[in-house]
């Protein structure tokens, strides 16, 4: 059983990650916050024993991704919004960040998620395959195609 202190620690440690994942999937501030709260509600109510911080992190990633996908499947949530509603002010202030951000968010979901998990969270392809329940070779292919698309969107610049 998760204690109140553990809940507080989890929100503090993984809150940013959960928020970023929500932004990657939903591209919507309001929905991101709803999913954010539902993820930590699930965490607080779980009876799962987490063997390590990495184990907990991976669980939160999966729960967040699943919650976002469920949300997107709902017809009423498929509306599009301007990026201004999604991107927070500090990002908008930096033109390069804004460009990269826009480029990533403009990719199809299947490319966005692998780009984020690989480049930002630092997961390896085999780890991403477990998180997304996809074949490792599929992950490599998705990453390769995502990089090509981003390169085009960013004016031929290599991404890292």
């Amino acid at each position, binding site marked *: *059983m998760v204690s*109140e202190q553990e*809940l*507080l620690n989890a*929100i*503090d440690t993984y*809150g*940013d990650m*959960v*928020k*970023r994942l929500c*932004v990657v999937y939903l591209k919507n501030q309001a929905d991101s*916050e709803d999913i*954010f*709260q539902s993820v*930590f*509600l699930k965490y*607080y*109510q779980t009876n799962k024993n987490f063997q390590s911080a990495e184990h907990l992190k991976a669980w939160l990633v999966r729960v967040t991704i699943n919650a976002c996908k469920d949300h997107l499947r709902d017809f009423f949530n498929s509306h599009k919004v301007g990026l201004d509603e999604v*991107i*927070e002010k*500090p*990002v908008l202030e*930096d033109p*390069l*960040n*804004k460009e*990269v*951000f826009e480029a*990533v968010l403009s990719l199809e979901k299947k490319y966005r998620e692998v*780009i*984020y998990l690989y*480049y*930002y969270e630092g997961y390896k392809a085999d780890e991403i395959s477990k998180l997304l329940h996809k074949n490792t070779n599929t992950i490599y292919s998705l990453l390769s195609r995502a990089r090509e698309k981003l390169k085009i969107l960013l004016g031929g*610049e290599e*991404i*890292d």
Partner: protein
Amino acid sequence: MIKEAFDKIGASEDLKDKTYTYVLRHTKKPLYPKLILSFGAFVLALIATYYIYFLPISFISFDINPSLELVLNRFDRVIDIKAYNSDAKDLISEISYFGDDYNEVLKELIATNTVQKCLSNDEVLSITLISDDDLKKEAMETSIEDYTLEYENIHCHKSSSEHTKEAHHHNMSSGKYQYYLLLVEKGYDLDLDDVNSMTIKEILELLGEDASFEGHHHGHR
């Protein structure tokens, strides 16, 4: 590049605070597992306490011809007294003993009219300390000596619990059973009922100088 772009994205402190409050407000943590665990722990604690407090650890046989046995727990408290004849039942009814230190119970028994009358009629009181803990027996003997040494006809013995089960099986105190074994060893053709009905004085007269258990002392009055 991607890292820098996403670095600026995060959960605001306001969102974190709101989430914490939201989760606690909306949580329906099932009460039953907590209740069941708490109740289970309580029951286990009760059972453990019961066994710790009520587990017989040592015995003190008190034989004149009222024949009875104090049952002690690990804290040297009397948790029961077994009477092995009707005289003993009457004697027990004269005292209160549950939870008392064995010294207090022995003093109370010795101070009863029944026992005082026996002692002044030159009957012999045999106190047998039954335990497998030699140090404990030594300590018990030392404390009993404080109030029994003045009596010539109070004998204190020490013994292991080797024959306790047998003794109780034959409805005898461990101390009286030891005397029975000594009599049999000496060649007397006596059965358990014969010995049970004998006073300690009569038994000692038969045994003479051979009346020794593990170690004993005689008081002097």
